């Protein structure tokens, strides 16, 4: 037999106007196990709270029921009152007789009847409530940032700035990401390298940042505050501890490979750093193109290296890191445009994609900044084709957001470097962003030809002498409604930005959900754009959706703040109303393990029963309803509690 106290609030007239409070109190007083029922004008007021606290002691109550406003308003208030009076806060039940009773009807009888029923339900349920204590866990103060592009760099620097340790994990030999490949950045046209490389160095110099290049996340275990991240350090065959970055090896190396950084437009050595300003400045050996690894002899680099840093025997190794939070900034891939035969990429050498052209512009690029084509000619006419694969049901339905602007940038640079004619073939010009529209009008004045229509075909089939030796872009100029054939020397495609090819694997490791394309899902599109369904894991940059540098950087900064809100606390409180398994009743059907979005339940194979990691549990109850034997007990919402409340609600 429990000892229940019921407190009914008038809330001034908000409740009392339609609910006959005294009648309700009398009703409550006559219910079994109710020791005392009281009413008060404002139970949430200080005297109201004192009334409750007093009664708890006076009548030595072990349950209290407050019939007032919605629990979403004052549940916390009354829980504090109970705790203060020595009663566990989970033994408080709030009955919502305002929002869902007195405010939604004018009929006194109806309101009073409903108030009684609701209180009766609460009494049924209160009997079965159990005290709960919330537990605290230690939080690991360090953060792992995955991806060394501008997003990852920014996040790492921000976190390091407040003195927290950051691990920056990058899978290529250098940080910098796509931004390092760009020549200029729109709309300001300042040099990408000039603004990026200082940040890259800052990363290198910062004692709080441990830079892990040529590394991949291999496994993530644990939960918010306590992640165990396993990192695979790919074999570099160069001992970076010894290497002094003289790069003599690179000079001597006979091996030749295609430069990933230059999008295959230039060669690189087998032992290489991706580009001059790479961070770190220390080289790696690419097995595929290394003469020694292919033929079994050479070892020139080894001979040349005074530091004896070359180590052909090196193998992949693993690093175990503990962290309180993780930020995923894994970026994007450019869509492969070969399959879109109508644009002739791969078939016609004069067709380029966006990243290739970026490299052509770059003074450190394969052509030392001159815009010359694969055949060595300088193009006198160039067509830039928008929306290649973007806004396209057959490929990617979304708009890649940056293409319009970088196409304008290309147009400007091409004008500057070639004085040729430049055509923009677009569907809609999207220039939303600070200074973007201005940039657009500037380009209009630069005499770029804008053709509103999506290029249909790029062909070599000429119709007349003028077209000889050119590529013909066929398009419906939708503004004149005329079919246009545009003879050009060079075609530049603006392909869709798509999720990383292995985004799904990363998502699986971090227990993130992805949208239908493979971009990481944010917890809420508006109110929690950087958080994810997994507490302690945040996302920034193009891994969430296509975005430009300004948006990426601001997201990165935000993600840093999000991560800090977690690791800046020494301990964190865990949800108390979590689920637990009554092993005696578990039949080992695995339903809970299968359905839980937080992987809180797991199977204890040798006992044949499931177990719940309460640190991961959010208390939603999904598993409890999936459990055929009610072995799972969702604290504070147990089957008995819910059904008892139902019984009380249905009695009168």
């Amino acid at each position, binding site marked *: 037999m429990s000892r229940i106290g019921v407190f009914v609030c008038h809330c001034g007239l908000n409740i009392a106007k339609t609910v006959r409070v005294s009648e309700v109190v009398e009703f409550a007083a006559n219910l079994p196990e109710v020791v005392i029922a009281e009413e008060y004008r404002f139970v949430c007021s200080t005297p109201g709270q004192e009334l409750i606290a007093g009664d708890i002691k006076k009548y030595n109550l072990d349950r209290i029921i407050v019939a007032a406003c919605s629990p*979403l308003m004052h549940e916390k208030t009354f829980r504090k009152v109970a705790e203060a009076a020595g009663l566990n806060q989970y033994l408080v039940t709030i009955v919502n007789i305002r929002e869902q009773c007195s405010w939604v009807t004018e009929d006194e009888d109806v309101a009073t009847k409903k108030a009684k029923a609701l209180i009766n339900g609460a009494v049924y349920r209160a009997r079965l409530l159990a005290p709960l204590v919330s537990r605290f866990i230690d939080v690991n103060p360090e953060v792992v940032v995955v991806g060394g592009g501008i997003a990852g760099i920014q996040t790492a620097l921000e976190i390091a700035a407040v003195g927290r340790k950051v691990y920056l994990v990058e899978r290529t030999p250098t940080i910098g990401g796509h931004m390092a490949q760009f020549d200029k950045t729109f709309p300001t046209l300042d040099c990408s390298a000039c603004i990026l490389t200082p940040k890259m160095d800052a990363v290198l110099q910062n004692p709080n940042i441990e830079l892990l290049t040529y590394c991949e996340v291999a496994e993530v275990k644990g939960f918010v505050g306590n992640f165990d991240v396993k990192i695979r350090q790919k074999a570099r065959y160069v001992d970076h501890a010894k290497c002094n970055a003289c790069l003599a090896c690179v000079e001597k190396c006979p091996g030749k490979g295609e430069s990933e950084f230059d999008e295959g437009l230039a060669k690189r050595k087998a032992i290489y750093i991706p580009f001059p300003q790479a961070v770190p400045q220390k080289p790696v050996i690419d097995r595929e193109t290394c003469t020694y690894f292919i033929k079994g002899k050479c070892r020139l680099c080894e001979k040349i290296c005074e530091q004896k840093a070359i180590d052909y025997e090196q193998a992949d190794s693993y690093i175990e890191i503990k962290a309180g939070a993780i930020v995923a900034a894994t970026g994007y891939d450019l869509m492969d445009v070969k399959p879109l035969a109508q644009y002739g990429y791969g078939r016609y050498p004069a067709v380029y994609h966006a990243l290739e052209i970026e490299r052509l512009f770059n003074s450190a690029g394969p052509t030392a900044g001159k815009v010359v084509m694969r055949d060595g000619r300088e193009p006198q006419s160039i067509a830039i084709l928008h929306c290649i694969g973007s806004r396209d049901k057959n490929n990617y339905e979304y708009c890649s957001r940056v293409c319009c602007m970088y196409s304008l940038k290309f147009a400007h640079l091409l004008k500057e470097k070639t004085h040729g004619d430049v055509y923009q073939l677009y569907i809609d010009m999207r220039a939303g962003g600070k200074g973007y529209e201005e940039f657009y009008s500037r380009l209009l004045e630069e005499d770029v030809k804008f053709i509103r229509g999506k290029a249909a075909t790029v062909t070599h089939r000429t119709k007349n002498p003028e077209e000889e030796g050119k590529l013909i872009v066929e398009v419906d100029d939708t503004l004149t409604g005329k079919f246009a054939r545009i003879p050009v020397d060079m075609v530049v495609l603006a392909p869709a930005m798509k999720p990383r090819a292995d985004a799904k694997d990363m998502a699986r490791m971090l227990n993130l*959900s992805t949208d239908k394309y493979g971009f990481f899902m944010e917890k809420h599109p508006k109110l929690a754009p950087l958080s994810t*369904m997994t507490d302690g894991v945040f996302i920034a940059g193009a891994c969430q959706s296509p975005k430009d540098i300004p948006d990426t950087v601001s997201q990165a900064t935000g993600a840093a703040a999000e991560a800090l809100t977690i690791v800046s606390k020494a301990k964190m409180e865990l949800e108390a109303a979590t689920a637990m398994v009554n092993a005696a009743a578990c039949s080992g059907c695995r339903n809970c393990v299968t359905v839980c979005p937080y992987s809180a339940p797991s199977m204890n194979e040798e006992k044949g029963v499931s177990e719940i990691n309460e640190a991961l549990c959010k208390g939603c*109850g*999904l598993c409890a309803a999936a459990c055929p034997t009610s072995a799972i007990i969702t604290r504070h919402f147990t089957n008995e509690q*819910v059904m008892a409340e139902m019984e009380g609600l249905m009695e009168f």
Partner: protein
Amino acid sequence: MDFEPKILGIACNWCTYTGADLAGTTRLKYPQNIRVVRVMCSSRINPSFIFRAFQLGADGVLVGGCHPGDCHYGTGNMYARRRLAITKKMLEFAGIEPGRFRVEWISASEGNRFAEVVGEFTGQVKGLGPQTKLKIKTD
């Protein structure tokens, strides 16, 4: 006097229960036959709760959750949707008027929708008369 049905509501904490509160704060009026049980997520609802509610004499049961995709727990309501769909089919095949059971996705901002649905559903259940089939016979 004419028949006043007992309706049990089961609402998820994050969307529908909050939506119901909003209906109150905006002082919308709707029939008071409904009595709402608050659970954290529509996925907490075990179909046996629904059967039980009818055994306890509910004339109608209304379940409310977040719109698919907006679940506070990500995918809870996706599972709930399947479970409750089956529940509906079961009631229908057992011969209990399917009109007595309804699932609605009502967000925290849809106070008016809540009032609307409850009004509509209450009317519908009234039309069906007292639920005697599953109700436990006491005597």
